[in-house]
């Protein structure tokens, strides 16, 4: 089983590294090309959010194995300012001005499971799962 992958996100180029590692891990887990692209896209959206809003954070990519089903787990953590209104942030088209406002709701739409928690002044954690078809 493939080991966990950690990626520190603190600059633009790290977003590219994160999505490439996500694609490589999902390929090694048996995801097809379409799913690999969707996983890489979702990773690039949440990594972009870290660079734009928190400046610094990290991503952990790991294999999921529950026996009957297998997949990939993506956890993004930052110690940024936090999101004041999560419900608003998850709304399509909402943005504080630095993006299209499609990143978070879009990532949620394409992944099988999506969870976001945020504490003002402490940071934000996004957890996403995608299961092998």
């Amino acid at each position, binding site marked *: 089983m493939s080991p966990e992958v950690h990626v520190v996100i603190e600059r633009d*180029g790290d977003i590219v590294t994160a999505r490439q590692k996500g694609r490589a891990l999902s390929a090694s887990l048996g995801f097809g090309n379409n799913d*690999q692209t969707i996983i890489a896209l979702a990773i690039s959206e949440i990594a972009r959010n870290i660079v734009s809003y928190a400046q610094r954070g990290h991503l952990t990519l790991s294999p999921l194995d529950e026996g009957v089903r297998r997949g990939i787990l993506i956890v993004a953590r930052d110690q940024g300012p936090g999101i004041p209104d999560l419900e608003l942030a998850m709304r399509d088209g909402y943005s504080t001005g630095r*993006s299209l406002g499609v990143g978070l709701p879009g990532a949620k739409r394409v992944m099988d499971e999506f969870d976001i928690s945020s504490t003002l002044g402490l940071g934000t954690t996004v957890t996403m799962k995608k299961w092998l078809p």
Partner: protein
Amino acid sequence: MSVPILKQGQVLIASIQSALSDQDLLQLRDDFADQIGRFRSRGVIIDVTALDVLNSFATRTLRAIAYTAKLRGAYTVVVGIQPDVAFSMVQLGLTLDGVATALDLEEGLASIKAQLDRSRANVP
């Protein structure tokens, strides 16, 4: 890693490589705005064949490039969006509204030629 811009007649062509960062895309936008004026270009082609992902930042910047070019008098075509990239954009809800697209470089050049012929035909 900046993107080289090739000049072919009245058309500027940039082939984006897969490791392009968001900052490189912004640089490309500025380079195009500058070179369209310098070379009096009428068309811009952005070839994204090698890109494995088009995220919301990239689609927003491609729209910005196309609209900036339009204001500078040039017509933009994005070419080479791969099938799984297109599929993932649809799934996530990303659009390139208002930006012309073509299957590949050849189709893109044909599209710009047709556009230029049309605009010449409109001159009284």
